């Protein structure tokens, strides 16, 4: 049911963990299924220097979490803010229709982390 790319990220998720003294933290709960993702970022020169995630969720949730960290690492905050759930799903060669909502988790955690960073500043 999942694409090869989803399974690959699920098996070898990138950037798992939590950054100590992170500059921005986003923790979101999925309204549809209740799964949870926490994303921490390190910001340098207005760009995402480092990013890590922790996710309690299904295979798609873990794969999208992993993918979003790959997509944003090194990107400027402006570029990162433009990343949507559709971007993440596309980067994984798509998700099954019932699993589209899972990608909200990754995009929203990212946006929440950036917002948190901006508020702190």
């Amino acid at each position, binding site marked *: 049911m999942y694409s090869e790319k989803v399974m690959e990220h*699920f098996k070898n*998720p990138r950037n798992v963990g939590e950054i100590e003294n992170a500059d921005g933290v986003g923790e979101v*709960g999925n309204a549809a299924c209740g*799964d*949870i993702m*926490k994303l921490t970022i390190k910001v340098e020169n207005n760009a995402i220097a480092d990013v890590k995630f922790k996710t*309690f969720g299904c*295979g798609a949730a873990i794969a999208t979490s992993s993918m979003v960290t790959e997509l944003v690492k090194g990107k400027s905050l402006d570029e990162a803010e433009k990343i949507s759930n559709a971007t993440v799903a596309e980067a994984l060669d798509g998700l099954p229709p019932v699993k589209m909502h899972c990608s909200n988790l990754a995009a929203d955690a990212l946006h929440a982390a950036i917002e948190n960073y901006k508020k702190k500043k």
Partner: protein
Amino acid sequence: MKGIYMDHNATTPVHPEVMEAMLPFFSEHFGNPSSIHWAGREVKKGVETARETVASFLKCDPKEIVFTGGGSEGDNLAIKGICEAYKDKGNHIITTKVEHPAVLNTCEYMEKQGFQVTYLPVDMDGMINLDDLKNAITEKTILITVMFANNETGTIFPIAEIGKIAKERKILFHTDAVQAAGKLHLDVNALNIDLLSISAHKLYGPKGIGALYVRKGVKIKPLIHGGGQERNRRAGTENVTGIVGIGKACEIAMRDMDAESERLLRLRERLHKGLTQKIEHVKLNGHPTMRLNNTLNVSFEYVEGESLLLNLDMDGVAASSGSACSSGSLEPSHVLTAMGLPHEVAHGSVRFSLGRSNTEADIDKIIEIMPPVVARLRAMSPLYGKSLNPVERTAAVCHH
């Protein structure tokens, strides 16, 4: 790699003896059992022999057996057929919150037809309270439908006591015995059951065939109208190969059940013990003692069930989960929710349901592969361990 199948409550493979019994009825004995000529007669005999076997399996008269297209049809026929036939007497049904969708959704449908339904709650072990049942009965109650054993947790309900209450209050009693058949002794008279549904594919028979026991004297309106087959209770030329298959499956169950059930209990206890010894925060879902011998439903707290299943599948282990994420419905299992499990615990549930193919080596393999999988997922879980960066959680929005 040989896979390990631990999902026998979902379905079972057809037993070789069952298949052997069915084969001649595909082309050698092909007649229509309603035909009076030789070709029909020999097939009719096969159907009636199967009916006798199923009847002795349930300890009833062969005339009380209606062959159906499976467990769901049996449940539908029982509930709709009784409501329709007895609607002059009342419009109230009592069931539980933890029934299979074949019963739950049928009851909800009956609500739309003007019936009232009481859904009895369950406690933390998934058990109903008989006082709740007694208190729910009104003058309008025409049917109690409570499953024999739950498919997700294996919890066995007090069927004998319910049967007694129903009989005293002169209310018809149906039980969905789809999970109990082949695992527990069934005796419709001793237990005061008026209707009971079973499905062949849960006891090493083929899919798409089941049987409904209807006590003599109980009126039932058919779902399917047509020819006079099944004593006018289920029209259509019989699923002969299926019927022969369910007969053989019941015969084998009667022969092997006691020994097999004991073997599975030993294996299941070994699995449960092994998992709880090697992994922290493992919680049993279901009744500690009143439970099917083959079923182990456990929650691995702080991790999500679909992720666990995907990992198990990569190691060749087939199991199932009550997690929302694996069902496509997004709702966590209605059974675990009714038992009051917190969301994260219900999401982390895995059901191992054992059967004939399982060996001690299978159990030991699972005990070996499970701990690193759980550890890996827990390391990834924001719910596990101490947070380095506490922050308030926000709700994700739906963008579509």
